[in-house]
């Protein structure tokens, strides 16, 4: 078998020598055509059905200055039509750009830490040791815990009279009462710690599976030729693991930029705006300040930004990956 990603498969008789689809005749009712359409049609229809109205309603609201507090329901928003004022405001809103930057900062730091920790721990688990099975299972548990619960546990954890401060007090031998979540930098650290805790196990699982599948004879040959551990890692392990690393990092990154639960439960974006990610920002604008038209404009801006980023971020996944193991 070849790569696992979209090698064009040519079976459809409409496809000519060049591999390009010939112009479809009106109502081309060949068996294969009907079959392939009926396979993808339900998904496409459901997707369009659910996306179409919300998308256009969002654009419509974003072009007005309507909010629920200005009277009338949203359908009457055309009375407050004001073209692109909201978009100008979004561009001028420092909090929006800060939230966007913060989101990528949290996602970047968290994913990098998850990757390094995951790889490191995976190396620890390469050889046999007593109780390996149990440690392995314990390592995977955080993934199974609902983020809403995890966020809550970490909120308790970082309280000034919580277990973390108690442990630090024990270690340094004097009372330590830092209110982690009330300080800009430490609140950020707390959020990242919670995120890393929840998702490092996934990285660990991926990396361990990759490491176990390494070709053993090549490793042995490298050892016999006198390669150091670092050389083996740099020139043998890393290139072989590369496709897996790319997939893991991209997938985690995609999920990390949507971070909401942890932040919402631990800090609500605070203190002030110190941990406000883009999802929290949207939540505040829409449900606390009730500026719906502004929120809609911000959402459309995010849609554009994310589409551009996604088309580059997902590119590594489109090229065929080498199989491992």
């Amino acid at each position, binding site marked *: 078998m070849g790569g696992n*990603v979209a090698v064009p498969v040519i079976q459809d008789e409409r496809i000519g020598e060049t591999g390009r689809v010939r112009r479809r005749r009106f109502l081309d009712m060949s068996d294969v055509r009907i079959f392939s359409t009926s396979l993808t049609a339900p998904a496409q229809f459901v997707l369009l059905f659910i996306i179409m109205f*919300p998308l256009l309603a969002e654009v419509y609201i974003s072009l007005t200055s309507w909010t629920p507090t200005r009277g009338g329901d949203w359908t009457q928003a055309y009375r407050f039509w004001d073209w692109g004022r909201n978009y100008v405001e979004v561009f001028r809103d420092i909090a929006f750009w800060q939230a966007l930057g913060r989101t990528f900062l949290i996602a970047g730091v968290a994913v990098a830490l998850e990757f390094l920790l995951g790889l490191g721990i995976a190396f620890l688990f390469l*050889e046999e040791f007593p109780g390996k099975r149990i440690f392995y299972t*314990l390592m995977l548990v955080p993934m*199974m815990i609902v983020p809403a619960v995890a966020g809550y*546990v970490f909120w*308790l954890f970082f309280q000034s009279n919580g277990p973390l401060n108690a442990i630090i007090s024990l270690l340094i031998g004097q009372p330590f009462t830092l209110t982690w979540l009330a300080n800009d930098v430490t609140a950020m650290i707390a959020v990242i710690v919670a995120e890393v805790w929840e998702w490092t196990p996934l990285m660990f699982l991926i990396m361990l599976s990759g490491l176990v599948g390494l070709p053993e004879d090549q490793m042995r040959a490298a050892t016999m030729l006198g390669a150091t551990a670092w050389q083996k890692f740099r020139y043998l392990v890393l290139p072989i693991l590369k496709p897996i690393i790319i997939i893991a990092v991209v997938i985690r990154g995609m999920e990390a*930029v949507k971070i909401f639960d942890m932040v919402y439960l631990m800090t609500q974006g605070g203190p002030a705006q110190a941990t406000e990610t883009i999802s929290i920002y949207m939540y505040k604008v*829409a449900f606390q300040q009730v500026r719906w038209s502004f929120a809609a404009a911000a959402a459309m801006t995010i849609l554009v930004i994310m589409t551009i980023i996604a*088309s580059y971020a997902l590119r590594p996944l489109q090229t065929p990956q080498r199989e491992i193991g």
Partner: protein
Amino acid sequence: MQKTPTWQRVVRYALVIIVVGMFTFPTYWMVTMAFKPKVEWSTAHGTIYWVPKNPTLENFDTVLTEYRGQFFRANQSSALPSIRSSIIVSIGGTLFALLIGTLAAYGLSRFSVDTGDLPWYVALGRLALLILVLLPFMVLWAWLGIIRYWYGILTFTILGIAADQLIGRLLGRIYRGPTGSLAFSILQLRMFPPMAIVIPVMIMWSAFKLIDTWYGLVAVYGVVTFPFVVWLMKSFFDEIPRELDEAAIVDGASNWGAFLKVVLPLAKGGLASTALFVFILNWSDFLIALLLTTRDWPTIPVFLNSLVSSEIGAQHGPKAALGLLAVIPPVVFGILIQRYLVRGLTFGAIKR
């Protein structure tokens, strides 16, 4: 393999214990808190109990049995309705996503000629065209006052889908490249924070009277998670040689027969791991359930968030107990399909 020196093994072992200990401690804290009586979990006294001194089941009792007027913000007096809601909604959403996602994945695996490498300016250009065409209709529908009702939204949506298909065809004539493959646009959807689109979805859902119903939530969960199903299942289908489909068809099976009786049974391991992954996603969702449910169908995370008592504030113990109960379904599901776990959780990145 040569033997690793003893000191190295000792250091490695110590490291394993420290690291795993650090990763287990929050879990340990939650588990022990679930069994602590009120004096021990309440932080008011400033004493920290590392191990529950008088283990008790009273927290589970508090959460699971009816409580008269104790809970302050919780709309339900016991967690049982939210557990039922979580189970129904997560399983329903998973089945829905599996149904439409698996069909699409098979279609993309066998018939797609689109490699899915869609430049962003084409995607956004197509979107802009669509908006340009449909916005006047949106205003018209609003002016007529029918967009407020379900039939207004329905007619508008049908018009929109027709316009989208038309624009796709037109673009296909002008731009000689992929103009929007399902596979790629599906994946792009995953990066988009659901928070951003949730207001109009709420508007639409309330027009269709879908707010706070299990089927309303199932529909959203299905749509939010089916990109994963498509991607994962496609990687499984790609591995099954297409000669098998052809052989079945030569033997007299129909297209559907070849798919349902030959290919799908071969991919059932993949289906199981995909199901687990999607189930975990649905099970742990907080945001969507928070905004689309109110009284009748809050899921476990939503109920947890509202679990506050009028007397002593946040209910740490009962919350931990419910959190512990919420771990059970994914773990049981995970153990059942252990063999396929890695593949599913790694998004098909690892082929074993």
